[in-house]
């Protein structure tokens, strides 16, 4: 039984480590801020889930497990919020993303977003 748990911990945490490393690598490698946000956000989701899951397997059923669960829940609540605040602030600051995506569709939406964001942007400046 212990062996099974240990192996599960190993697998879970190794995969978690893999994703953590990918996160760091992505943070360095991606071309612009918007894409880096994706990379940075990864560490908060699956990687934390796997690593804390692995730890929870080791701790057995105790209050420690509850605390681990709270940390994961806390991360799941705060990390997208921080990411959103970051992305939104970036957008308001007017940083242009590098798009080499869907051709004309991307151009379309981009002009649309500018229409949508401009008035609000000026509103926030005025008060």
């Amino acid at each position, binding site marked *: 039984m212990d062996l099974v748990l240990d192996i599960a911990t190993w697998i879970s945490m190794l995969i978690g480590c893999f994703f953590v490393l990918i996160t760091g690598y992505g943070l360095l490698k991606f071309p612009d801020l918007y894409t880096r946000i994706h990379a940075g956000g990864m560490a908060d989701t699956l990687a934390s889930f796997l690593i804390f899951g692995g730890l929870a397997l080791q701790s057995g059923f105790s209050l420690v497990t509850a605390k681990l669960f709270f940390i994961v829940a806390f991360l799941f609540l705060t990390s997208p919020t921080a990411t959103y605040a970051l992305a939104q*602030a970036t957008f308001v*600051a007017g940083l242009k993303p590098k798009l080499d995506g869907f051709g004309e569709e991307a151009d379309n939406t981009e002009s649309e977003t500018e229409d949508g964001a401009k008035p609000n942007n000026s509103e926030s400046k005025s008060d």
Partner: protein
Amino acid sequence: MSIFAVSAIAILVSVALALARAIMGPTAYDRILALNAIGTKTVMLIAVVGFMNGRPDFLDLAIVYALMNFIGTLAVLKYFKFGTLRRGFSRSSGGKS
């Protein structure tokens, strides 16, 4: 070599990569992002080290880190957006006028 040690090293390497991004920039937002990522990884690292040393009461610390990371990021972004810490995100008093 336990799995904890392996993961600790992996997370450390990742922290180093994120720190490189924080120092390189180029924009301030990149640095905030990197800082936030460092914070999250630190939370994981603390938990892992706590288990490595057999002292799971380190988890309280991990929670404090997660909390401070969140508040710090919000404060930085707010400063950037409005140039002041006074106003709420809601901008409720005066935003409507």
